[in-house]
């Protein structure tokens, strides 16, 4: 075995070298020894494989022109900002050449059994293309957000739509947000009372409930509920407008769909999320009060005094504004933006009829919820750094 391996190594090495025998192609009797020249003939095939490999990258991109086409359609119909550098590169450099090979190289009969190197190349290529698509999607997402923000400051303002969306996003979510806020406050008080009782520190229930609700649970819970209720609604509504050509109709009537559909939803979400969070916090702390008084036996006055102590302990900004409030209201503002833009993004990119609408809805809820939790962490880091 060892000897054979050495042979192979030698053969391959000598084939790869610029062999002096190549200058004398008449020396065919060397072939009987299965020497370098013989291998060289096979290497010729291998070189073609290398060429295939090169072309396969073109095929890969050619086959994955879908995102380019999609972006092109978006530019045509909706057009978020400028065409991406990546798209331009793909279009100008490789996009237009017709793909010369239809079968993937690593399955090509010319190559026999797939070599490990080629399989690896194909694997990396698919990763590469996948990454490009994701980069494009992220770019589209932020392009949409930027355009929606820019339209906030340009006429016409569609105030009617903003009010209607504030009703849909804010008022209609009120019940569910208040209910969950109340129960979260109660369960927080209940859990902390059990823990605190071990140290005889049950009088600090108010402080714990407040710190948790104002800084974290209030904003995050409200945002995740609104993402589920409103984000999905936005995606479904805009998605069905897309599949019934209503977005095209807006475009043909000379109205930018982002301005008419996305901006009002974004404004409404940016205003209503902090409002919902304030109410959720208040009700949550109220729920804590109920448990603290009824179950643990802490007087309401003492409970609210500890609540205030907690708020004041975070310090004040500009002498009057508690730092905890600033932290607690920056988050819902950001989350509101995430919910509205994610819903609109998946809604606008809906394709494939009613099934597409369903997919857009699901994706909105998943992506928005995950984004809320991830962004929450980083935002907390930043806010703690700024306000302690």
């Amino acid at each position, binding site marked *: 075995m060892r000897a054979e391996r050495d042979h192979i190594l030698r053969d391959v090495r000598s084939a790869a070298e610029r062999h002096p025998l190549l200058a004398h192609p008449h020396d065919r009797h060397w072939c009987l020894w299965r020497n370098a020249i013989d291998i060289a003939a096979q290497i010729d095939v291998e070189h073609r494989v290398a060429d295939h490999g090169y072309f396969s990258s073109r095929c890969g991109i050619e*086959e994955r*022109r*879908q995102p380019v*086409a999609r972006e*092109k*359609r978006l*530019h*045509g*119909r909706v*057009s978020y900002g400028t065409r991406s550098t990546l798209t331009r590169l793909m279009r100008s450099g490789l996009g*237009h050449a017709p793909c010369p090979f239809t079968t993937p190289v690593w399955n090509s009969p010319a190559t026999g059994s797939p070599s490990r190197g080629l399989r690896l190349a194909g694997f990396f290529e698919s990763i590469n293309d996948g990454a490009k698509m994701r980069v494009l999607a992220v770019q589209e997402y932020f392009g949409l957000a930027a355009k929606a923000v820019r339209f906030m400051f340009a006429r*016409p303002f569609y105030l009617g739509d903003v009010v209607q969306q504030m009703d849909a996003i804010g008022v209609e979510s009120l019940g569910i947000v208040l209910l969950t806020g109340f129960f979260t406050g109660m369960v927080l008080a209940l859990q902390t009372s059990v823990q605190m009782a071990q140290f005889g520190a049950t009088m600090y229930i108010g402080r714990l409930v407040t710190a948790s609700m104002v800084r974290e649970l209030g904003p995050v819970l409200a945002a995740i509920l609104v993402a589920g209720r409103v984000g999905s609604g936005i995606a479904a509504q805009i998605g069905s*407008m897309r599949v*019934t*050509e*209503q977005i*095209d*109709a*807006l*475009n*043909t*009537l*000379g*109205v*930018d769909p982002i301005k008419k559909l996305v901006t009002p939803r974004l404004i409404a979400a940016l205003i209503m999320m902090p409002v919902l969070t304030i109410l959720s916090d208040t009700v949550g702390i109220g729920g804590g009060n109920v448990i603290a008084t009824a179950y643990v036996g802490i007087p309401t006055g003492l409970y609210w005094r500890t609540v205030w102590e907690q708020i004041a302990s975070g310090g004040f900004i500009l002498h009057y504004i508690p730092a905890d409030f600033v932290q607690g209201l920056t988050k819902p503002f950001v989350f509101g933006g995430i919910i509205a833009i994610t819903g609109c993004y998946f809604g606008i990119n809906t394709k494939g009829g009613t099934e597409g609408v369903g997919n857009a809805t699901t994706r909105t809820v998943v992506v928005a919820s995950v984004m809320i939790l991830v962004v929450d962490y980083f935002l907390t880091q930043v806010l703690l750094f700024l306000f302690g």
Partner: protein
Amino acid sequence: MTDTPGDTKGAPAPPEREEERRANPEEDGEPRLRRAEDELRARFAEELQEGEETQERIGASREAIVELDHVSLAFDRPILENVSLVARRGETIVIAGESGTGKSTILKLILRLLAPDSGRVIVDGEVLNDVTYEEALVIRQKMGMVFQGAALFDSMSVFENIAFPLREHTTLNEDEIEARVREKLEFVDLEPDRVMGQLPAELSGGMKKRVGIARGMAVNPAIMLYDEPTSGLDPLTTGTITRLVMKLQRELKVTSVVVSHDIRSAFRMATKIALLAERRIVFFGSPEEMTASQDRYVQDFLGGV
């Protein structure tokens, strides 16, 4: 405009071939074609007659208003290849062809919802290839589009749907808007008082189409584009919608581009018919020329009707 460069309508045979053909008619199958032409004429006599009358009344001018000049477009596969056609002011162009041949894409190109990969699209003297997105929004106000499924905004009432473009692009006050909405609804034979307050979901398919037409023509555009205006409708409603399109071109002298595979209504309303097959235009000419065409595909297409 039968001499468009992209036009691949059968060119007249050279004289010597013509003589051979006369000498040996059976072999060439000319009588068969002649018979087919007569047959087709007889079959579409009524529509052709009506079409001629319409065209006389319109008196289409020679000025080109919509022009596609060697347009090609591809996404993940080619959609259109080297397509050229011209609509002159007042004309009605019907783009016919099988499903999936890129008919509706032509409308999207005219509206600048899509940009061609090569070639030019010119609307009312402006080359759409180079316009920005914002400029395209303004140019689109010259055009009214009627979508296949009407594409009425379902959160708005019929009145708000038709008033929408007026509120966006005109300075009319509420009374004037209401007067205009009533006028347009009456034009499409709907009773304003009955339908104005209804939501699109409460309307029948034919009514939706009519409201769609009313919305498209609300700002009195110079060009009307129709995407399959008669598809999915019963024969009676199809007739009503066809008559409506003709009334629009007769009374308001708008240029129309109609995408349709309904060749009967195409013959009734078209000045020119463009037949798309396999991403290309295989025929572009008047309905008369179409029945006379000896192109095998055209014959097959008409024969299959």
